[in-house]
């Protein structure tokens, strides 16, 4: 250390020492710090537990969903239908005009819904009341089934 460095050190130390001439009494109590620390630790643990619970619930939901779709796939294979379709229909939706009013035939989900109702898969799952249309892959012909005659199983999703 050079003399200049030493002089700097001495000067700075004196300056800093004089900056705290009027030191008041310490108000901090160790017991208060301990209480605050315990509370903080408890909050952190609670937050961690909450985060783990949320992650676990989300993971369970995803696993259940995956298991459900795997079960549906197995059911499709058991019925002798291909799980995957390699050919896309030429027109995904066709409107038919019959005695029951305009109906939309959805070639993707293979269901028929009234035109004034949403034709999404969710509607089909929630209210399976309309006529259900299925296509014979060999002949390409569509056949309608009434809900009363239809089985109580869920509609088979199209894995595309």
């Amino acid at each position, binding site marked *: 250390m050079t003399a200049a460095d030493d002089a*700097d*050190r001495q*000067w*700075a*130390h004196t*300056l*800093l*020492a*004089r*900056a*705290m*001439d*009027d*030191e*008041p009494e*310490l*108000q*901090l109590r*160790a*017991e*208060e*710090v*301990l209480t*605050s*620390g*315990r509370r*903080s*630790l408890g909050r*952190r643990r609670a937050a961690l537990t909450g985060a783990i619970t949320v992650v676990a619930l989300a993971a369970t939901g995803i696993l259940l969903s995956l298991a459900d779709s795997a079960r549906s796939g197995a059911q499709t294979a058991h019925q002798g239908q291909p799980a995957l379709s390699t050919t896309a229909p030429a027109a995904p939706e066709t409107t038919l005009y019959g005695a029951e009013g305009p109906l939309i035939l959805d070639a993707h989900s293979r269901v028929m819904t009234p035109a004034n109702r949403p034709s999404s898969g969710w509607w089909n799952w929630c209210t399976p009341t309309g006529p259900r249309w299925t296509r014979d892959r060999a002949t390409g012909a569509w056949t309608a089934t009434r809900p009363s005659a239809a089985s109580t199983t869920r509609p088979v999703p199209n894995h595309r």
Partner: protein
Amino acid sequence: VGVRDDEFVEFVHRCSAPLRRTALLMCGDWHRAEDLVQTTLVKLFRAWSRVRGMDQREACARQVLLRTIIDESRRFWRRERSSDVLPDRAIPAVDSDLSIDLRRALAALPVRQRATVVLRYWEDLPVGEVATLLRCNEGTVKSQSAKALAALRTMIDSGRVLEGRQ
């Protein structure tokens, strides 16, 4: 848990005062220094199971204090902003006190320069250790110290600090 807590209480009794002095030089106000020490000690308590096994608990506490002060200085509501109009400030009862002027001079330095000065010249830490604490290289510590001392000298010489008292 009882032994663990007893150890922590003993540590608090031993370290609070030195930590508060360091915090004062960094923030310039005794009350805020005490708050910063409390925050530091609470942070240490959360990690006490790891800290209690360390040889250098005081060094660890100093590091946590320093990080707390630097982090606080970066927060939006504490960040310094330039303004044309000076804000109204309460005048302390002992405004003429020399120590307050010196603290103001220190407070005028950028936070990292202040930290360098306090660690090097108050805590008497070697340059390498200061560099580790501030997560920079040794050359930066030296240059920051030189700049900080030069700025303090300028403030003192120009009479903005210690006016008529030397």
